[in-house]
């Protein structure tokens, strides 16, 4: 495998505002550097895509594979320059991110889908969304579920005794349903005085989430841990009694698999992509705070439930592997390379 690096400020889940903040920051600290990047997100995406086209004409390859809208233009340009087949891979769409869809982003997404020989979605949920919202025909659409590789729990870390712990981990964005988590936590906190809630991650709704926690009088019960290194997060998964992923729209939800891998019972929103690959999780209708709170408490109250979700869930994720997902991607490559 060979890598050709393109220096860029693009990173997953970047927004226009975040990009411009970062670019301004660089202008201040490294003015020489700043000129290398586009002054706004759209121009940076275009700059990146022409770099991709240049690289494509110099390299020898069979298939172009681009991930999410940030690199779709790069894929399109590379295809235009070389005529090689294009596979675009959808991890999340603009519609998963909530709020009014950004016209530039959806336009890029549409262009990517139109130019692609195959569109790979991370779940059936996302495949349906792509078909319905963007009109991608089923014959060009494929599902390759995300996966997780077997790994042993980190070190010999022992689960520390203590109060029951309910965990939220991931980007604190509208899509992940942080407000719903806080509302359910409030219901649980009323009933079970010992229970604590941990939040790992950060995002544009972090402040709003913290304010909601305060407004509900839950400051004492919540622990905001911020963005955690993988090892620290692993410890938190293992320590938690239940992991909650109340996403509004969830293309996949890899963190649910990480929690299951640590033997932590998982509650996810119905329809989340991850529940297409695991059965031993609890599901709630999105927005049903009462059912979510009831399920959190059920896991804490009924040890046989916790044990069964833990052991069967762990066994279930052990059967998953990235190798298998990679195999499915290769099959898609063969489809397009053959035509």
């Amino acid at each position, binding site marked *: 495998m060979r890598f050709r690096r393109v220096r860029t400020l693009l990173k997953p889940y970047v927004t226009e505002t975040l990009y411009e903040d970062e670019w301004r920051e660089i202008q201040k600290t490294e003015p020489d550097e700043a000129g290398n990047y586009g002054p706004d997100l759209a121009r940076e995406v275009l700059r990146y895509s022409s770099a991709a086209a240049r690289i494509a004409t110099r390299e020898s390859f069979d298939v172009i594979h681009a991930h999410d809208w940030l690199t779709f233009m790069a894929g399109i340009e590379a295809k235009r320059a070389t005529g090689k087949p294009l596979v675009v891979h959808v991890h999340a769409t603009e519609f998963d991110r909530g709020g009014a869809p950004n016209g530039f982003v959806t336009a890029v997404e549409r262009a990517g889908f139109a130019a692609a020989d195959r569109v790979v979605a991370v779940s059936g949920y996302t495949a349906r969304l792509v078909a319905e919202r963007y009109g991608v025909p089923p014959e060009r659409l494929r599902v390759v579920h995300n996966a997780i590789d077997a790994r042993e729990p980190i070190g010999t870390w022992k689960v520390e005794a203590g109060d029951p712990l309910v965990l939220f981990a991931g980007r604190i964005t509208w899509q992940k349903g942080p407000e719903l988590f806080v509302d359910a936590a409030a*219901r649980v906190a009323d*009933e079970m005085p010992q229970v604590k809630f941990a939040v790992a991650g950060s995002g544009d709704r972090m402040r709003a989430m913290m304010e909601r926690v305060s407004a509900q009088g839950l400051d004492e019960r919540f622990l905001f841990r911020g963005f955690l290194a993988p090892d620290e997060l692993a410890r938190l998964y293992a320590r938690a009694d239940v992991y909650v992923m109340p996403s509004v729209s969830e293309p996949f939800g890899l963190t649910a698999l990480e929690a299951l891998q640590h033997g932590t019972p998982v509650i996810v929103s119905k329809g989340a992509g991850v529940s297409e690959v695991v*059965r*031993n999780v*609890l*599901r709630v209708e999105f927005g049903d705070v*009462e*059912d979510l*709170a*009831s*399920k959190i*408490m*059920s896991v804490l*109250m*009924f040890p*046989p*439930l916790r*044990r*069964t*979700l833990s052991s*069967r869930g762990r066994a279930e994720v052990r059967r998953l592997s990235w190798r298998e997902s990679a195999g499915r991607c290769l099959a898609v490559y063969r489809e397009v390379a053959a035509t």
Partner: protein
Amino acid sequence: MSNPRTSRAKMPHRAMIPVCLYFQVHQPYRLRRYNYFDVGREHRYFDAAQNGELLQRVGERCYAPATSMIQRLLERHPRFAVSFSLSGCLLQQLRDYAPELRDAFARLVATGRVEFLAETSHHSLAWLASTDEFVDQVNLHRRRIAEDFGAEPRVFRNTELIYSDALAALIERMGFRGVLADGVEPLLGGRAPHHLYRAATPDALALLLRDYRLSDDIAFRFTDRAWAEWPLTPEKYERWIAGLDGEILSLFMDLETFGEHQPAESGIFEFFEAWVDRRLRNPRAVFLTPSQAIEALPRREVLSASRPISWADEARDLSAWQGNDLQRDALSKLFALETRVKSSASEELLRDFRRLSTSDHFYYMATKSQADGDVHAYFSPYDSPYEAYIAYMHVVSDLERRLPRPARARASLSGTQRPSPRA
């Protein structure tokens, strides 16, 4: 696939094996969506709307056409006979939602060639948790059958054909003349199910065993296009049966096989009616009810089931209802309340307690995968076994809260009386 039944069928003019038909008729009281916050504020546990709708649907698709078909067959053929076991849960729901269907069953009984079997009133797992409650429920069921149909069951079948030596011994003591079980290998030990056997009880209670292959050919495989014998025709089925040695062929299945598990469009009704017609064209062919079979047939050797068997799942043991921690926990939590429920002398509490003892609730909590899992999911109103367990456990919590506080002496007593599941 080489089929021994077809190869043997070539032998001409052998005695026709009598057939014993028994149809199970049962619908549980399914729970409503019930969560933690309902505890203490919602004491109606059962989803009346859903249960009523389902009963109507099954009534239209199955009970009405199936009882008419059987009525026609009884009128046409003096040598046709069948038996039913109607659970108390079903009887009560017929009273509440479809009294005309109860009348349809009553008309069948009036022919004198339909036998009703005994079971627990609530199609329950009481046998696994409490002998007292088991006996109470069997007696309650006897009274219901007497009230509704003027019939007195003499032969017993336990919930889902759960059977063991200990069960047979109790059934014998209760005065029954025979008991039904599934003809599984651990019990038969290489013998054929086509004889009347003796149970391992002091008085060698009559033991009638289901031929599960021929029963399931109708009940499970009839619409299975992947089955090598599909489509099953009356001619083919009769050919298999005509080739059998023995004194009795027991075909036991859910009545819901007709029109519900196997849809009417599959031709299941036509198949069955044509098969009975065809069989009875032979003047030596005969159908026997379990009591008639027990009366008429010689009894073979004693068969023993030291461990419980049943007719459910591939394993044909208790694992369909007591195979995981959730199921065992739920059953023991319910029966931990038995003494207090009974001493409360509240009809309502007792009624709810008994409806919660129905086997279906535990069946929904099974975490089996593959073929068994698909069958469990087909019957379950829940998305997952976990949903079933959670709703059930919160209901049991509420039931417990409704119980009168135990007197101090009784409190210590009830602590020692917590029953544990047993065979």
